[in-house]
């Protein structure tokens, strides 16, 4: 079982920039005086980022993944977190088995 020093350096670099992003917000608190419109944009950060991360998998992989993403979206209006994951994964597995 090995731990390559160059790999470890890469992990440490990744960890450092990640930690900086996680604590940088502390410096912003109290300095953000947002208009209602800016507040709406601020509130849109979580859905915008979540969708940006998964869009390649949902929209640029194949029609099966796109259909499963739409089904997951519909399920999300009715079901809790784990139910949505179960429905999405089942849709992908089912469609891949059929086509």
């Amino acid at each position, binding site marked *: 079982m090995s731990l390559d020093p160059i790999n470890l350096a890469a992990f440490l670099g990744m960890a450092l920039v990640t930690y900086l992003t996680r604590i940088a917000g502390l410096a912003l608190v109290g300095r953000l005086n947002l208009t209602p419109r800016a507040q709406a944009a601020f509130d849109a950060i979580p859905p915008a980022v979540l969708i940006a991360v998964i869009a390649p*998998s949902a929209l640029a992989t194949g029609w099966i993944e796109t259909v499963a993403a739409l089904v997951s979206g519909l399920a999300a209006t009715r079901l809790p977190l784990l139910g949505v994951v179960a429905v999405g994964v089942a849709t992908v597995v089912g469609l891949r088995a059929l086509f």
Partner: protein
Amino acid sequence: MSWTDEARAGLSDIWPAALAAVPIGFLFGALAAGKGLSPLEVFAMSALVFAGGAQFAAVELWASPAPILALVFSTALINARHILMSASLAPKLSGFSRAQTFLGLYYMADENWALAEKRARTHPITPVYWFAMAIPFVCLWLLTSTTGAIIGAALGDPKRYGADFAFTALFIALVAAFWKGRVTAWTVASAGIASALAYRFAGPPWHVLAGALSGLAAAWIAAGSEAAAQPCESPAE
């Protein structure tokens, strides 16, 4: 609320997200092993970085020797969202000491952040609640990603189990928790299209930046037209 109630609330909030992350951890470990990383290295990366999206992108970029600059840049870009996430969460961390804040934020991820934001609408976020979410979540991620690296080859193609789609479905479910009507619909449509196009034509990690900025711009525009149409609308829906 007593601290046991807080701990129970943290555990009951995190377990569906933690369970959803189990196949993702196995998948991550298996993919990393496929790129030549040892189980110890997978453990080290998961423990030090603890950021699913950035870790998947890193494995995609991985080569030998490790392209350190590209890896750090991709990680910074994908995790830039944490700056705004922590700015939003930090004022809600009531009763956290300085040390608890700096330690607690080390393991802030999309899932425990989103759940804490949701809870902050009705309850104060206490250190016990936060660490009751974070500790099991981190332990499970370390356990599953390392195990995935050990048995990755034996599991075979993760696509057969649909495990590659669990992450996508999980994020779609999390978006629903932030739904605020028309503005969110424009945000999601704009972020999705921009991200998919950037992924197709510029490649990772640019899709995250392009999608996030387009989503914000769409929310800005949609909120403006809403304010003009209904000037007396209360900001609290």
